[in-house]
């Protein structure tokens, strides 16, 4: 196959036709469209170059730039679209499937595009379609959370657009390629910030735990994979080697882990974990060496796999029990053994345990940090890796599936294995996490740069086992400190959420009072004055203007009346008038000639 087929077209077309497909064909169709999109991406992976170029005004819009970086991200996005759709195969809401496919289409559009104009189009498509995955939870907070998510992403879109326009003004083209990060301009910062907001760079990250914790059980699987990793792709494409990203990435890795460790909501814990894990990728992009970029891409790919698996596992708990808080769950392995086992694979994967996914990717970024003499960053990322083991490798499975049973009798009765399609999707995800962990060759061959990295050395194995074992020892000694509490942990969003409420208070109180006072002032003083002026104008018009006009009219009428008398129609009078006028003219002429 040597023809570029855009997978977004397949997903968008499929989404448009989905409402027309009903009955037994619906589930087949739901699987067929993502599989076709995945097949298109597989076909495209054999190509290299620019395809689907569309002239638009004075620009060339490139919808199909295919290279190794784009292919690696496109493959994993298309794969997770298949898995997430399979996971939610039984979801009846057609619009939810449509929103999810449009969201995935936006991501694949960003990945394949070669110019900023089409990038912006697909970027906004992602934001406006993904919000429905939050709203469709239909929880008490879903609507407000969705609007916050939309507002923040609209702000990010505006920042990105400002950067794109300034860059066009300065550079004169719209090519989506590596920027000159050695001499960053205002547009460089704005574009980086626009991408950074979607990557949940601290302090622009609060939308993520807010929205992902509130999304529908199926929507969260799409959300956890797509937005942040598409942003990681965009950063890798445009900002590789931008050193400020190392600092931001390390802050993300540390910031996210403390919140994840404290969090009482299982899906918000995973959302905080995304902030932390994406921090590794952002730091890798900031380091910018071949090994670091490879590490960031490899970690993004495996992160999508294990994080979607973890969201599927916790989504199964939400789906069956309706609960997401540790304080209302626990000991669930007895009721959900398969879910527990599959989720554990995700936990081992994110904890970078040998034979599981992140073991082959996370160490690439840390080693790249040491190799690039960024020792402080590498040590802090290593420190954050201990946090990952604690919150995701130990706290999540221990307090959710083992440990004390805190379920109410209703929750315990409801708990059970989810439908078969959910289990199959989780099994495929877990299998892929394991396969990549034991045989990372295929993953490494898909990376942007050729690599000879070998994760399975005796030292790396023993080092990892020490990290896992002694973190576990500390956890079991201090697990009492991490016992679930029904509290929330305020974040930076406190400022804008309370700022929003303060603004509403300002509008409802002083501004509304001012509006009322202004109205009263107008009614008491301005209105009578206006009436007085109106009455004076009326009098002036009536007596002065109309007086003059009417007087003129009356004079003209009087003169007309007098002149009318002259025209009696009798010939003797006419002759008299003519001769009188002629005599008058003769006398005037005589006098003029004499004097």
């Amino acid at each position, binding site marked *: 196959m040597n023809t570029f087929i855009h997978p977004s077209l397949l997903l968008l077309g499929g989404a448009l036709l989905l409402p027309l497909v009903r009955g037994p064909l619906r589930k087949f169709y739901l699987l067929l469209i993502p599989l076709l999109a995945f097949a298109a991406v597989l076909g495209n992976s054999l190509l290299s170059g620019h395809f689907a170029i569309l002239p638009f005004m004075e620009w060339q819009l490139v919808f199909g730039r295919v290279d190794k970086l784009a292919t690696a991200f496109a493959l994993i996005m298309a794969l997770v679209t298949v898995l997430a759709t399979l996971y939610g195969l039984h979801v009846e809401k057609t619009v939810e499937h449509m929103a999810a496919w449009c969201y995935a289409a936006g991501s694949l559009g960003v990945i394949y595009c070669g110019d900023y104009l089409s990038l912006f189009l697909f970027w906004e498509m992602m934001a406006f379609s993904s919000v429905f995955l939050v709203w469709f939870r239909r929880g008490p907070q879903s609507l407000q959370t969705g609007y916050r998510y939309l507002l923040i992403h609209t702000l990010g879109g505006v920042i990105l657009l400002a950067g794109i326009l300034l860059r066009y003004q300065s550079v004169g083209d719209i090519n989506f390629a590596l920027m000159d990060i050695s001499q960053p301009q205002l547009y460089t910062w704005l574009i980086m910030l626009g991408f950074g907001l979607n990557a949940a760079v601290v302090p622009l990250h609060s939308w993520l735990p807010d929205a992902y914790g509130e999304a529908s059980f199926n929507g969260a699987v799409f959300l956890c994979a797509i937005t942040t990793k598409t942003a990681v792709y965009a950063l890798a494409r445009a900002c590789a080697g931008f050193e400020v990203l190392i600092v931001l990435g390390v802050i993300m890795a540390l910031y996210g*882990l*403390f919140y994840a*460790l*404290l969090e009482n909501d299982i899906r918000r814990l995973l959302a905080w974990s995304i902030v932390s894990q994406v921090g590794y990728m952002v730091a890798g992009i900031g380091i910018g060496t071949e090994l670091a970029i490879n590490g960031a891409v490899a970690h993004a790919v495996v992160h999508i796999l294990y994080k979607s698996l973890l969201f599927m596992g916790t989504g199964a708990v939400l789906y069956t029990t309706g609960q997401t808080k540790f304080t209302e769950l626990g000991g669930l392995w007895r009721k959900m053994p398969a879910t527990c086992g599959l989720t554990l694979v995700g936990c081992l994967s994110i904890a970078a345990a040998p034979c599981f996914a992140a073991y082959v990717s996370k160490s690439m970024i840390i080693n790249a940090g*040491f190799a690039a003499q960024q*020792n402080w960053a*590498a*040590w802090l990322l*290593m*420190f954050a890796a*201990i*946090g990952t*083991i*604690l919150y995701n490798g130990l706290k999540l499975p221990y307090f959710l599936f083992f440990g004390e049973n805190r379920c109410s009798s209703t929750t315990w009765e409801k708990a059970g294995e989810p439908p078969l399609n959910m289990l199959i999707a989780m099994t495929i995800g877990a299998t892929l996490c394991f396969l990549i962990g034991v045989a990372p060759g295929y993953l490494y061959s898909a990376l942007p740069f050729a690599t000879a990295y070998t994760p399975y050395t*005796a*030292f790396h194995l*023993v*080092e990892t*086992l*020490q*990290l*896992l*074992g*002694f*973190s*576990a*020892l*500390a*956890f*079991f000694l*201090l697990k009492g*400190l*991490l016992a679930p*509490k*029904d*509290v*929330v*942990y*305020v*974040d930076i969003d*406190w400022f804008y*959420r*309370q700022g929003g*409420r*303060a603004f509403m*208070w300002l509008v*409802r*109180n002083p501004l509304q009072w001012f509006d009322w006072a202004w109205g009263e002032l107008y009614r008491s003083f301005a209105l009578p004055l206006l009436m007085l002026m109106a009455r004076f104008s009326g009098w002036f018009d009536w007596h002065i203007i109309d007086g003059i006009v009417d007087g003129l009219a009356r004079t003209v009428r009087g003169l007309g009346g007098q002149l009318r008398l002259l025209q009696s129609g009798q010939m003797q009078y006419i002759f008299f008038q003519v001769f009188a006028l002629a005599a008058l003219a003769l006398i005037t002429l005589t006098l003029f000639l004499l004097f």
Partner: protein
Amino acid sequence: MKQTGQNILQRGVFLALFYATLAGIAILSLVVENHHPHSWLEAHLPFFWSFFAFFAAIIIICLSKWLAKAGLEAKPGCYDLPLGPAEEKKP
């Protein structure tokens, strides 16, 4: 939950296995050579990564609890609490 004799035995066996595994891993770290140490301590301190993991985990757990007590922890619904007396007056 009441601890039965069998539970205590199971727990004891589990702990013995856990500590034996940790000891095995630690001893293994003495055997395996680190060709690329990143610091003097890593090159010269036996069980370096065991100590690193253990103390890093303790620091992270204690620091997170301290941060929670220092002001991050709040009651559920704290975002919907009145902003001040002026807002409380509104129905």
